[in-house]
Structures are given as structure tokens and as C-alpha cells.
């Protein structure tokens, strides 16, 4: 690790402007800070992308379907089904209601009971698939009416239990975004500190440059170049390490549908590439502001 850091530093020093002397610890501080922050940003990004995906997935399953199940003695089944259908057709919020025929029921049951199920011989309830419109159904009102018209009908809006989960996922996504904002702000603050300490340590150098006719932009550019480059390289390393640890995250497999979505998938990886340029941009702006401000206070 040590050897790696020094060779990295050597590359930076030759490329950055030579008039500002290599200032050991502010350089290392910047490299380390942006590497650590980029590493954290990878996880924050993974969190918000994955929870976003989870929330989308769950809320699409919430898509407004429900069922009415009618269990009644064989003689009443047809009549109650008809009554329930009539109730549904006059209920506000119902877009369509359709009685599942024998083929549909067979398809539903096949995964559990196999192909040769003697449907006629079983007391299978009748199912009505209900699709809601955007307004939604007043579930309690509907239940009361069904009770009166078709006592064997049960209205089941079975996917509603997921609603709190979708809220939780949305909240997690917000937290992830907040973490990214905080990480960005912290990086900016740390680089501001490092840059202003480098400027103070080099006040003699700055004085010499000014005395031989350097404009403020020249001096500022020299510092900005160094800090931008260091932040970029640091963030590149942090992003690589963070990405690698995401890639090697032990997979939960299909057994746990809940956790398997937590990694980065497909185009998610492209988002990581934004981290180093963002770190460089933050360093650029922070160093520029602090450098111009410091120079105005000097000679």
C-alpha cells in the first residue's frame, strides 16, 4: 500500500503545476478523504438505486387488482356469483370485473395440484377478478354490500399489505440520496480545509510568485490543478474498491427475494463512474473559492 501511494504521488507531482511545492500531508489528506468518501458514496448509491428499484417493483405489484371469492353450497354458487358481479358492476371505482372460467382456475391451481385435477369434483370457490380504476374502491362499503347480496362473497385486496413496504423503500431511497449529498458536502469541507492549510503553508511561495508578476488566477490555477487531480485520483481508487466490494457481495440467491435486489445491477454500475468527476468538481470549486479568498488577504 505504501509503495503504491508513493508512486501515485509521484505521478501527481509531475503532472500538477511545479511552482507549488509538493506539500506532503495536505496532498495525502485530500487523496485519502476523496478515496474514503467515494467508497462510502458507492454504498449510498447502491442503497438508493436498489431501494428505488424495490419500491418500483412492489408498487407495480400493487397495481390495482383484487379478487372476490365466492364459496357457497353448489346450488347457490351460480346465483351468488351473478349477484356479486351485479354489485361490482354498480360499485364506483371498479373498472372491470370478470368471472374466471374453468380454464383460468385450472391454470391457477396447476402449479400446486398438477394437470389432471378433477375440478368438477372439488368444491372450488368461484373467483371474480376485479380491476380498479384510478379512483380506487371503497373496500369497506363494498364488503357491506356484498354481505347483503351474496353472503358467500369475500372481497380480497390481497396486495395492500405491501403498501407500508413501498413507503419504507421510498424512505430508504431518500436516505441514500441524503447520504450522497452529505458525503459531497463533507468532501467539499475537507478539501476546503486541506487547500486553505496548503495555501497558508505556501504563503512565502505565493508572495514570490506575486512579486515576479503572477496574476491571482495563475496562483489559484496551480493549487486548483493539484487538488482537483488528487481528488479525482483518490475518488477513482475509492470507487474501484467500493465497486469491487459490491461486486463480490455474497449473493443471497433466489431464496431470499427481499435481499437479492440490494446489489448493483446492469446499468447501475454506470452511475459509479460519476463519482470521480463529481469529486473533482467539488475539489475544483472548493479550492478555487478558498484560494481567491486567501489571496485577497495576502499582499
Amino acid at each position, binding site marked *: 500500500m505504501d509503495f503504491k501511494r508513493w508512486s501515485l504521488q509521484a505521478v501527481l507531482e509531475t503532472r500538477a503545476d*511545479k511552482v507549488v511545492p509538493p506539500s506532503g500531508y495536505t496532498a495525502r489528506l485530500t487523496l485519502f478523504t476523496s478515496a474514503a468518501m467515494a467508497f462510502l458514496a458507492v454504498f449510498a448509491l447502491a442503497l438508493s438505486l436498489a431501494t428505488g428499484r424495490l419500491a418500483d417493483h412492489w408498487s407495480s405489484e400493487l397495481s390495482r387488482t383484487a379478487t372476490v371469492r365466492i364459496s357457497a353450497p353448489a346450488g347457490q354458487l351460480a346465483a351468488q356469483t351473478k349477484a356479486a358481479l351485479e354489485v361490482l358492476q354498480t360499485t364506483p371505482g371498479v373498472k372491470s370485473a370478470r368471472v374466471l372460467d374453468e380454464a383460468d382456475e385450472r391454470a391457477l391451481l396447476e402449479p400446486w395440484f398438477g394437470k389432471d385435477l378433477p375440478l368438477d369434483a372439488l368444491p372450488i370457490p368461484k373467483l371474480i377478478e376485479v380491476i380498479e380504476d384510478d379512483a380506487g374502491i371503497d373496500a369497506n362499503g363494498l364488503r357491506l354490500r356484498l354481505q347483503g347480496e351474496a353472503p358467500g362473497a369475500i372481497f380480497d385486496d390481497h396486495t395492500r399489505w405491501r403498501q407500508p413496504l413501498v413507503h419504507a423503500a421510498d424512505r430508504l431511497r431518500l436516505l441514500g440520496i441524503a447520504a450522497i449529498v452529505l458525503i459531497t458536502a463533507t468532501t467539499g469541507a475537507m478539501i476546503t480545509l486541506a487547500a486553505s492549510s496548503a495555501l497558508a503553508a505556501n504563503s512565502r511561495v505565493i508572495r514570490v*510568485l506575486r512579486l515576479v508578476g503572477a496574476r491571482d488566477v495563475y496562483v489559484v490555477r496551480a493549487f486548483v490543478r493539484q487538488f482537483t487531480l488528487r481528488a479525482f485520483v483518490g475518488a477513482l481508487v475509492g470507487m474501484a474498491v467500493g465497486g469491487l466490494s459490491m461486486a463480490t457481495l455474497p449473493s443471497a440467491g433466489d431464496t431470499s427475494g427481499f435481499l437479492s435486489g440490494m446489489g448493483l445491477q446492469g446499468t447501475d454500475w454506470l452511475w459509479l463512474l460519476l463519482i470521480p468527476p463529481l469529486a473533482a468538481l467539488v475539489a475544483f470549486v472548493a479550492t478555487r473559492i478558498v484560494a481567491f479568498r486567501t489571496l485577497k488577504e495576502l499582499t
Partner: protein
Amino acid sequence: MRVIELTNVSYGYGDTELLSDVSLHIQPGSFHFLTGPSGSGKTTFLRLCYLDLLATAGQITVFGKQVAEMTRDEVAFTRRRIGVVHQDCQFLDHLPLSQNVTLPLEVADRADEDENLGELLTWVGLADRKSALPPQLSGGERQRAALARAIIMSPDFVIADEPTGNVDWEMSQRLLSLLIELNKMGKTILIATHDLNLIRVAKSQVAARVLRIRDKQLQLAGADL
């Protein structure tokens, strides 16, 4: 246009005034010496001239522009026309001598115009010290390097604060002849020095005037030198 013009200028570091109500013009192409006892304010006066200090009263005009009203960029552009040998010879200690000497070109984005570097370093006797770092140089070598840096840009106005303080008599004359040569090319020269012999030698070659600081005032020294 006058190179520099001081009108009723006063300056003091704290409450005590060091220079009081000083007025002076320096014409282009002139050659001036500045003398006075140690601590009389020679360096202070020169710092006013190269825009390192702002007068506490009165006004200073350099190349026709009032110093107090210059922006920071204008100060930088004006300094590129003034070559300065500072008494304490400030360098960038991490850069070799040759890069220190060409620093004024570098900061002015004219780094490619260093064709005179070799000749200049030879003249000041530093050709074989090119790659030495400033802390490795002797006091006299630093002064010579400072002079080389001051004139690398071929400035209109050369200000030298004790440029021969640490060198032997032979080298002093060599440096002086360099400044006289520049003066003959039309450059304006202002040198602060204690060395009366140097002033005498110079006066035998150019029409040099001698200014003296006495009692917070700037006087033109007469033939009594």
C-alpha cells in the same frame, strides 16, 4: 511618460513615520542611486516603488497609472515591467536556479522566451550552478541569481536593493556594468547601495544621480560624494 512619480508621499509601519512628504519623478532611461544610513528606509522606499506597499499618504503613479487605484491584475501586469532584486532575495526553494531565474517568464505565460538564459547566467557567473537549489547557494550567488531573474524579462524599469552587498569588488563591477549596459539600451535603473566606490565607478560611465534619505526626506546628493 514618467516611469514613476511620487507626490507628497508618506509612509510608516506603525505610528512612527519613516518617509514624510516625499515627492520625486523618475524619467525613463535615467540612472539613480539611493543611499542613506541603515534603517533610514531605503528598502521601504523601493517597496513603495514596486507596489509592495501602499503609501499612507500622498500618491504614487507608476507608468502613468495611480497605484492606489490599480486592481490586483493591474499590479501584476505592472510588476512584469519592473525587474526587482530584493534585499532578502526570495526564491522558490524547491525549484532549481535556472527555473527560478525564468520564473517571471513562466508566470507571464512566456516560458518559451528564455533564449537569453544561458548568456545571462554566464554573465553573472552562475552557468555551472544552473541546477542547484536556492538553499545550496552562497549569499553572493543568490544576489547574482536575483539580478538575473530581475532582468530576464527585459523590463523597462530595474530596481535593485543592495545588489552587490555580498559579492567581491570585481563581481560588483561586473554586475554594475550589466546594469549600465541595460541603461544604455534605454532601461530605467534605480539602485539602493551603501557602496560609495560603486557609485563613483558608475558616475564615470553614465549620468547617474544620487538620492539620499535623510530626516524622512529624499534629497538629491551633490558633488560632495
